[in-house]
């Protein structure tokens, strides 16, 4: 479904992503694991078209999207829930959801209802300014907003960041449910433990390079991964 082939991304002179290749197949949950600064967010931003790779090809459903403007990539069924949620803090919960459906023209009330069914807290707070929500609620809004575009592939950048363990469990449950409902998932996490449990396959990223890949279970058992990411 999504193929990244030989990506090299720079911030000025900083070479943030080095010869990265990986793929996400239809129906999978794929995890990208790496420490802070490894280049995980840079990869997602490049896939979404906010940054450009100097080399290689990024393709979605066989179509080259390496030079497609970011606002057109959403229409191809690819949504991103960015790091730090990045919801529109001064807009209401409802308006945030409407922005998620921007490419659809008017937001479909049925879509809004299905987001509310998934996240009942958002329904209670639909008229509230998003900046007043708690961290967990903001994460739910960011996910609900991305769902409004009916993505076939959803990319989540550290959805568990800064959340209490019980909320992390809840967010991962929802990711599992989205996956069962047919959405392909590319999950970026520092929280290797949770991510490897849920992922079909994973890639380990170190200073901009893919250093290891395998199934979630394989990597969870790998001594190198245990040492570096699972606390021994």
């Amino acid at each position, binding site marked *: 479904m999504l193929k990244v082939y030989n990506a090299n991304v720079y911030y000025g002179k900083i070479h943030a992503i080095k010869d990265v290749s990986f793929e996400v197949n239809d129906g999978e949950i794929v995890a990208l694991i790496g420490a802070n600064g490894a280049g995980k967010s840079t990869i997602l931003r490049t896939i979404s078209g906010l940054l450009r790779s100097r080399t290689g090809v990024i393709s979605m459903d066989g179509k080259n999207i390496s030079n497609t403007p970011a*606002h057109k990539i959403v229409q191809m069924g690819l949504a991103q829930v960015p790091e730090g949620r990045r919801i529109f*803090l001064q807009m209401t919960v409802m308006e945030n959801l409407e922005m998620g459906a921007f490419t659809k023209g008017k937001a479909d009330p049925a879509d809004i209802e299905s987001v509310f069914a998934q996240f009942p807290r958002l329904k209670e707070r639909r008229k509230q300014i998003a900046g007043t929500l708690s961290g967990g609620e903001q994460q739910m809004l960011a996910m609900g907003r991305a769902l409004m575009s009916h993505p076939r592939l959803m990319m989540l950048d550290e959805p568990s960041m800064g959340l209490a363990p019980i909320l992390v469990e809840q967010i991962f449950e929802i990711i599992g449910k989205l996956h069962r409902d047919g959405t392909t998932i590319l999950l970026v996490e520092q929280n290797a433990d949770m991510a490897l449990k849920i992922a079909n396959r994973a890639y380990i990223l170190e200073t901009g390079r893919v250093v290891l890949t395998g199934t979630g279970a394989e990597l969870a058992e790998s001594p190198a991964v245990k040492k570096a990411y699972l606390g021994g």
Partner: protein
Amino acid sequence: MGTITKLLESLLSGLSLGSIYALIALGYTMVYGIAKMLNFAHGDIIMAGAFSIIVFTATCGLPPIVAILLGIVFCMLLGVTVEFLAYRPLRKASPLAVLITAIGVSYLLQNVAQLLFGTSDTEFPISVGNSALALGSVSVKYSVLLTVAVTGAIMIILTLFISKSRTGKAMRAVSEDKDAAELMGINVNRTISVTFAIGSALAAVAGLFYGMAYHYVGATTGAMPGIKAFVAAVFGGIGSIPGAMLGGILLGIIEKLAQTYISTELSDAIVFGVLILVLIVKPTGLLGKKISEKV
């Protein structure tokens, strides 16, 4: 003239002047809020609007209402073109480079106007005359009523547009977070173009009212109202739409009151003095947003 009458009349003419400032300040504040830049060439769009209306009426012989509409369209195209040619290539450049470019565009527009229309002022052909409506002892010029009514209607429409329409919501999303807006499928560049078009249309209307109030237009006509409107936008809280409306109207009223009761010569100094005071007490302006919301 009675004390009350004098006060009311100066308040009304301040309201009318302030409405013109508010129209211009809206353009400054919307462009600042969405493109995060100070478009110092914005004042010159007022001049371009006034001159284009002159050309469409005096030279082309079109009826005033048609000339006004064409003048508005001309300014929208001009604003969008300036953004496309001068500012868009600098989207990732330093704010200082953008600021200097904007000042350059301002001089360019003034010089082109001098080339086309000469250095002496040109008479503005549209006027509602000097007749006034008598309300008891207070007389209100029709031009004042027209300016206030049209500006009020524009403000209501603009507020509804920003808060309710799909494009207006996209503008708010872009002003908060450009990358997140792109991720929603919002074309940020197009949204910025729309913002320049709206701001320039308002400047054209300001140019019309300016021409009607002062009867003559020159190449540097836009400079002073442009600066005053910028002050009004900062005074109200730059980036805030209600702030630009409030700031513009208050500035006009303060200026007229200062002229009536203190001194015509000192009125500008008083206007800028008030700005400095407000910024000392509240650095974000009257209705400015807190800057702390971004972590």
